[in-house]
């Protein structure tokens, strides 16, 4: 039997696709790379997923797990003809334990949908990536996704208690537990963020977070980018961890204003969107403190959301940033470096300088509170030479971040896109240790190969490449 017939015998014909058009649609995620797809399947249970993995093994092709395909690093893009296992049909919320504040959910549940479904319980799933209207919980687990509110709450890994995993051998195993500090090695912690290379997640036990009784949201305008960045550094240093602390520069603010009309100050060089959440008394004090620090750095405007509607509008401005760009430029290239929060001012200065030198148009919208930068270059790839200039500038931006003590990715992942930059932050021995871990899960190298680690990471094949330089 051929591959498709074999898959259809398990899933039926409606849930197996191999038409050239389908193969093209699923050849890319939201990043810039494309890859070859052999067939696409939509399993609905862990057992079906395991069967697909075994059929792919018999056919000698790799498996690539995929959620909604909103990933930006090429994690769900195959490097050789592969079986794409799309988890979006596994979108049930199985059980919610309101008292214990946990829920078992399918990996295909949409991030925002989960919190919406929980609305009546007074609980929510804390990680809130800007893509939350479309990305899946399984994808969030795959990338250890972050979001504005991960500043105080931690990224996805802090909100995942256990996963059910289909291994490369087609075994189904639960990793992690409902009780605290599960005995044995914490393999859950490495499965989260493994970008589909350690197995396919078919069920997730998520931790739920209590909705705060009070929330304060401030939009602060600044005369210079440096003043905004310095405000961020001082807020963190002053002993306050806000619920969220996001920054946008003028080009970004203007793009967003044209798009959603949220009333952002378009004359400011940069704005900060700050949120404090918790007990009403604490919220009041913290909001005052943020306003005081902002004013001491010359804030030119301070707007406090008067009600939930205004708060939602201010957040809509932030969360539609990428949509706004997509509207104005044919292509965009986005980085995701992290730098120590004390170095924000100098790294931002350097990034603007790089953009100016290469003559490219740069916009900034990012998670300032945890030092997670998203320099975004909008361009038109159809113009000759433009992509090359963009990539050259992007490379320099990564390097200035790393030189300031930073790293390659804060939330989007390494995938295909940053794989070959891993040597900038890890030595050959560091990469070898990571490769050992991966090999323990997947000795055959068929689970989403070619992602995260550069070729030749395992020390016995290191001779083949130059290896990393370390830091």
């Amino acid at each position, binding site marked *: 039997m051929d591959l498709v017939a074999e898959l259809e015998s398990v899933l039926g014909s409606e849930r197996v696709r191999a038409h050239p058009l389908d193969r093209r649609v699923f050849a890319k995620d939201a990043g810039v790379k494309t890859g070859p797809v052999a067939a696409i399947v939509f399993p609905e249970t862990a057992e079906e997923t395991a069967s697909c993995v075994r059929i792919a093994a018999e056919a000698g092709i790799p498996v690539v797990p995929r959620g909604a395909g909103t990933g930006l690093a090429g994690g769900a893009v195959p490097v050789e003809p592969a079986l794409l296992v799309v988890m979006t049909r596994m979108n049930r919320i199985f059980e919610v334990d309101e008292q214990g504040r946990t829920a078992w959910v399918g990996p295909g549940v949409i991030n925002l949908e989960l919190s919406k479904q929980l609305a009546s319980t007074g609980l929510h799933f804390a990680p809130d990536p800007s893509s939350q209207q479309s990305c899946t919980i399984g994808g969030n687990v795959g990338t250890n996704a972050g979001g504005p509110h991960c500043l105080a709450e931690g990224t996805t890994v802090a909100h995942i208690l256990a996963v059910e995993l289909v291994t490369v051998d087609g075994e189904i195993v639960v990793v992690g537990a409902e009780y605290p500090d599960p005995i044995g090695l914490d393999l859950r912690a*490495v499965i989260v963020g493994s970008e589909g290379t350690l197995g396919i997640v078919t069920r997730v036990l998520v931790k739920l977070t209590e909705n705060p009784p009070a929330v304060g949201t401030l939009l602060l305008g600044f005369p210079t980018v440096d003043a905004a960045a310095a405000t961020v550094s001082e807020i963190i240093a002053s002993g306050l961890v806000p619920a969220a602390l996001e920054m946008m520069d003028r080009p970004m603010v203007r793009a967003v204003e044209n798009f959603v009309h949220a009333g952002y100050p378009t004359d400011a060089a940069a704005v900060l969107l700050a949120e404090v959440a918790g007990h009403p008394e604490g919220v009041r004090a913290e909001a005052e403190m943020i306003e005081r620090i902002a004013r001491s750095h010359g804030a030119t405007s301070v707007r406090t959301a008067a009600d939930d509607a205004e708060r939602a509008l201010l957040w809509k401005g932030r969360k539609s940033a990428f949509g706004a760009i997509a509207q104005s430029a044919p292509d965009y290239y986005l980085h995701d470096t992290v730098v*120590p929060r004390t170095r924000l001012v100098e790294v931002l200065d350097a990034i603007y300088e790089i953009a100016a030198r290469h003559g490219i148009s740069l916009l900034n919208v990012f998670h300032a509170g945890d*030092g997670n930068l998203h320099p975004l270059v909008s361009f038109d790839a159809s113009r000759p030479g433009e992509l090359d200039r963009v990539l050259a500038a992007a490379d320099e931006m990564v390097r200035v971040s790393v030189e300031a003590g930073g790293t390659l*990715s804060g939330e989007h992942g*390494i995938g295909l896109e940053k794989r070959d930059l891993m040597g900038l*932050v890890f030595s050959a021995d*560091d990469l070898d240790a*990571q490769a050992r871990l991966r090999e323990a*899960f997947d000795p055959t190298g068929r689970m989403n190969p070619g992602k995260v680690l550069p070729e030749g990471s395992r020390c016995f094949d290191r001779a083949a490449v130059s290896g990393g330089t370390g830091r």
Partner: protein
Amino acid sequence: MTALREVTRRLLERLRPDDVPEAIGDAPVVAPSTADEAAEVLRHAAEEGLTVGFVGAGTRLGLGGPLEPDLWVSSSRMARVVDHQPADLTLTVEPGVTLGEIEELLGAHRQSAILPEGRPEETIGGVVAAGASGFRRLRYGPTRDRVLEVVLATGYGEVVRAGAPLVKNVTGYDLSRLVVGSLGSLGFVARICLKLWPEPPVHATVPVTDPAAALAATYRPLAVLETREGGFVYLGGTEAQVGAQAAALGAGVRVGLAWPDRPTGPVPVELRVPARALPEAVRTVRRLLPEAPFVAEHGVGVVHLAGPADADEEFRTLRRWAERAGGVVVRLGGYDVLSASEFPPWGAPPPWAGLQRRVVAAFDPAGVLAPGKLPGGLR
């Protein structure tokens, strides 16, 4: 082989550091001063097939059962603070630094690493290897959520670094979190970077009669504990906030955090259950071990307790109850009064024991690190 061990033993006697914890007795101990030295020791141990245990202050050695390795590696000569970035809320330390030293350093900056309370003598290396957390995990999450970077001397004798001293990072596999709670099975933790929290300006402790109800009624307390003395809610925040929250809970407010002592007694154990089962767990402990001191963490699902030496039957019943409730009972010590065969250190192995064995073999190919410590191990 035995002759070689004898020679090694005699040579090691001479290298013995002065401050060897009592629990080790007179077994051979080496104390490397750098990660490279530790890796070298481990490389030799792997080559010679010598089994190795790791030790800090020696306060948590009972976790996973008693260990009698050929060689102990102590963190006592690696006890330096490497870097504190108060404005970035990170701290990098060597494994032998004690919790007391860390909290004293951070206290001066009104910051905290949220480490186990009331255990100043413990080392950070031991806390990380044991995966231990403090009571304030209800508010700030467990220790593993704050380990940003580790340097590890692996069982195959290389020094590797994982993670970065940054609060947000998805660059590569998160080996630093994997090390937390690994009980020495992957290697010697030679450096740790922790994420810090600012200390709230005001703290208070409020006695309550119904801790489960108090937990449900209070937004994000630091901890809600129950002991034989009663229930207590621990609050942190601005003066106005703590005042309002305390007033809503009742009378008898004490300023500051009055933590209970961890239960001591012949056989210390930890009962861990899903948070919703905690009230039932407390009732079960009261019924089975009516005299045993305990501290129960509401909203978390942990009961720390210490039972008498002759309570093996009750301990086994407690473990059966816990496993039915979706939890476990873990032993922390007391093997000299109640043997590991009468009441084993762990109950049923974790479902992922097969994967775990492969991961351990990748980091300890010779199978010499802390043999038998992890649950579900074959060695």
